[in-house]
């Protein structure tokens, strides 16, 4: 039977198991929207901005592990997706983004609402397609889902000219994907894995660094097994939070620029780093030449380009994290005889003293609301049982530091690109996937304004997402840098009187708005906010002066940390250097 391109698209989406599409209509995608109007199985969630649609699909994907699907129109609709796509690309999140395009005959003519979106997104997609012939449509859709979700996942974009969705052809759907030029390596090299096992047994001061790859591959259980069996402490990068329980006694918290003292110290002193599904981002390593100077490095990653990109690796293992860990654990248990408890005693004791020396702290005595206190209270009241999204800036770092993530896929945050405006739409996507879970966006007053229009999406779809704004009336993280490195000249970071009344904004959208201005009100507001079965904005008016500590100045080694002045202890605070 002959089907139109639009019919083929919907049919393929259903075969891929898609239930929700995030999107926004326009002229050249009307063929598709018209069909969606009557469709019972596919639900389109209309966001209020295409960037919101992509972030929502991304949040959906991060929370579920399934690919997020987006449908937007050509030209401005397509270009509005770019930030969302780049965000997903940097964090290896599977998305399939469909953009309308002007009819094939008009492509290249500067037609109305034409944009070369395939050209524009080439560097920020894993792969992209322009469908020129309707006969290729089924295969391309199938390939797109396959490419997006296999290997190192990532966003794939499909550009759909209007005549392709409008014309008809015999429906064809390949049973399997065969792309001769695309064959990710899943199975790690056994000999290398053996080397890693022996290195772990020999190491006196090993540290595991777990990244987002552990979560993407579903390897959290295997990682825990490795850490517990060999008695090795684990630090989790921002993307890796939740890959290993933050409350575990072997957990060191996050490393890097705003990492814990003890995570950074452990890395710097260690003789073996076992890097799992992470890519040595500069926010983790600090100055490369001063990073883990004594450590041998084992690096497990599915992406060969991640290995030896930034740091020298002694034992490279290309493969799927989970599969590699399964084999590594097996080898360790079968072939390596060690007194794991004994050989780590001194090292773990050393780490324990670092933990006691400099835990994460803030001033708990003040009556002004400290942002860290709000995060801690959220953690306490939810007992950690929530999906947390964040915006970008101080709010993101405090969420990472003070909320203990025990399970994978419970922290959704833009790590690689650091996209302000990510958290709220991502929370909407996650809430759609898990209607009964508590989903909270820990936000900043600056970031929330970047996609605040999505309140409408949350309200109309009855998605009871919670937004906790750590309202410091500043682009706080930038202000922090200005205070520390630019002599306190707050060029264009003070929002103050222009910060809108978030309670009123919430109410204007028919959501609930609450505010706390004193420490004593925080708990009441949170309790009330978390209880409401509606979207809620909680505006916490916090101390604007608060800074995120520890902090490694850009360009410094990760043990050259700054600490809050009033908590200065034994170590002198390093002299500040100007930064780029």
């Amino acid at each position: 039977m002959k089907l139109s391109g639009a019919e083929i698209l919907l049919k393929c989406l259903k075969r891929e198991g898609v239930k929700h599409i995030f999107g926004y209509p326009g002229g050249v995608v009307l063929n598709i929207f018209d069909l969606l109007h009557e469709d019972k199985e596919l639900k389109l969630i209309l966001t209020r901005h295409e960037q919101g649609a992509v972030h929502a699909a991304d949040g959906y994907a991060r929370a579920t592990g399934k690919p997020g699907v987006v449908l937007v129109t050509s030209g401005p609709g397509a270009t509005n997706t770019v930030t969302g796509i780049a965000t997903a690309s940097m964090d290896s999140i599977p998305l399939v983004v469909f953009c309308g395009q002007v009819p094939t005959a008009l492509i290249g003519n500067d037609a109305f609402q034409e944009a070369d979106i395939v050209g524009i997104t080439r560097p920020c997609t894993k792969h992209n397609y322009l469908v020129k012939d309707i006969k290729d449509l089924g295969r391309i859709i199938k390939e797109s889902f396959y490419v997006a979700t296999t290997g190192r996942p990532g966003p794939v974009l499909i550009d759909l000219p209007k005549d392709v969705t409008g014309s008809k052809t015999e429906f064809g759907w390949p049973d399997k994907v065969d792309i001769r030029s695309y064959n990710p390596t899943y199975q790690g090299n056994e000999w290398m894995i053996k080397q890693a096992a022996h290195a772990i047994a020999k190491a006196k001061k090993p540290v595991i660094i777990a990244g987002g790859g552990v979560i993407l591959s579903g390897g959290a259980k295997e990682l825990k097994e490795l850490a517990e069996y060999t008695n090795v402490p684990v630090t989790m990068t921002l993307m890796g939070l939740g890959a290993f329980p933050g409350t575990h006694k072997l957990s060191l918290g996050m490393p890097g620029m705003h990492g814990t003292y003890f995570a950074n110290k452990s890395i710097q002193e260690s003789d073996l780093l076992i890097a799992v599904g992470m890519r040595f981002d500069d926010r983790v390593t600090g100055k490369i030449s001063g990073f883990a100077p004594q450590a041998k490095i084992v690096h497990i990653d599915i992406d060969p380009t991640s290995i030896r990109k930034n740091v020298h690796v002694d034992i490279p293992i290309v493969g799927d994290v989970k599969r590699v860990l399964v084999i590594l654990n097996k080898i360790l248990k079968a072939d390596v005889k060690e007194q794991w408890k004994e050989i780590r005693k001194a090292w773990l004791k050393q780490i324990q003293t670092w933990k006691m020396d400099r835990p994460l702290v803030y001033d708990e005595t003040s009556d002004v609301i400290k942002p860290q206190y709000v995060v801690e209270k959220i953690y306490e009241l939810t007992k950690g049982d929530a999906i947390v999204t964040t915006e970008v800036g101080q709010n993101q770092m405090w969420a990472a530091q003070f909320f203990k993530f025990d399970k994978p896929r419970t922290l959704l945050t833009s790590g690689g690109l650091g996209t302000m405006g990510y958290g709220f739409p991502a929370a909407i996507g996650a809430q759609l996937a898990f209607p009964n879970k508590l989903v909270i966006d820990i936000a900043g007053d600056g970031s929330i304004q970047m996609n605040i229009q999505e309140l409408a999406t949350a309200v109309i779809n009855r998605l009871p997402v919670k937004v906790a704004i750590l309202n410091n009336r500043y682009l706080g993280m930038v202000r922090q840098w200005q205070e520390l490195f630019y002599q306190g000249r707050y060029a264009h970071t003070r929002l103050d009187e222009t910060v809108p009344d978030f309670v009123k904004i919430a109410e204007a959208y028919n959501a609930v708005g609450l505010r706390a201005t004193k420490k004593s009100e925080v708990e009441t507001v949170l309790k009330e906010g978390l209880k409401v079965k509606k979207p809620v904005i909680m505006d916490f008016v916090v101390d604007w002066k608060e800074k995120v500590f520890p902090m490694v100045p850009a360009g410094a080694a990760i043990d050259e940390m700054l600490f809050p002045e009033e908590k200065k202890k034994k170590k002198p605070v390093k002299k500040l250097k100007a930064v780029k």
Partner: protein
Amino acid sequence: MKHTISILVENKFGVLSRISGLFSGRGYNIESLSVGETIDPQISIMTIVTVGDDRIIEQITKQLNKLVDVIKVVDMTESDHVEREMVLIKVAPRSEDKAEVLRLTEIFRGRVVDSSQKTYTIEITGDDKKIDAIVDLLKPMGIKEFVRSGKIAIAREGIKK
């Protein structure tokens, strides 16, 4: 160090910009590039000459391999291979130099592919040393136009370094 990298790619729309975009986006150099179909019209071969230390070349080959449309990447520099470029040179010699131009062409096993009252157009193939040498010799005779192809390369059979 200079590396000559052969890349087998799907002969698809946009593949050249994927490759060149990868080089520009990551700050790698392209010294020369040539593209053509292989015997199988669905596959094209690109030859790229680039410079970088071992770490950069390793990244380049890995990044190329990661592109979905790339079938195979070979760093020709790692083994024995033959490299060729072609130039077309239009010279406008004074009448007393004409014989010398023809003599040089012959010595370098070039061919005169076009001539006019005032000019000869010479075709020469070879590796870059040979081409640089003839260019140096012809320069004083008056080169009017000069076109150089990208490099192409093929592995020698059976000999591995």
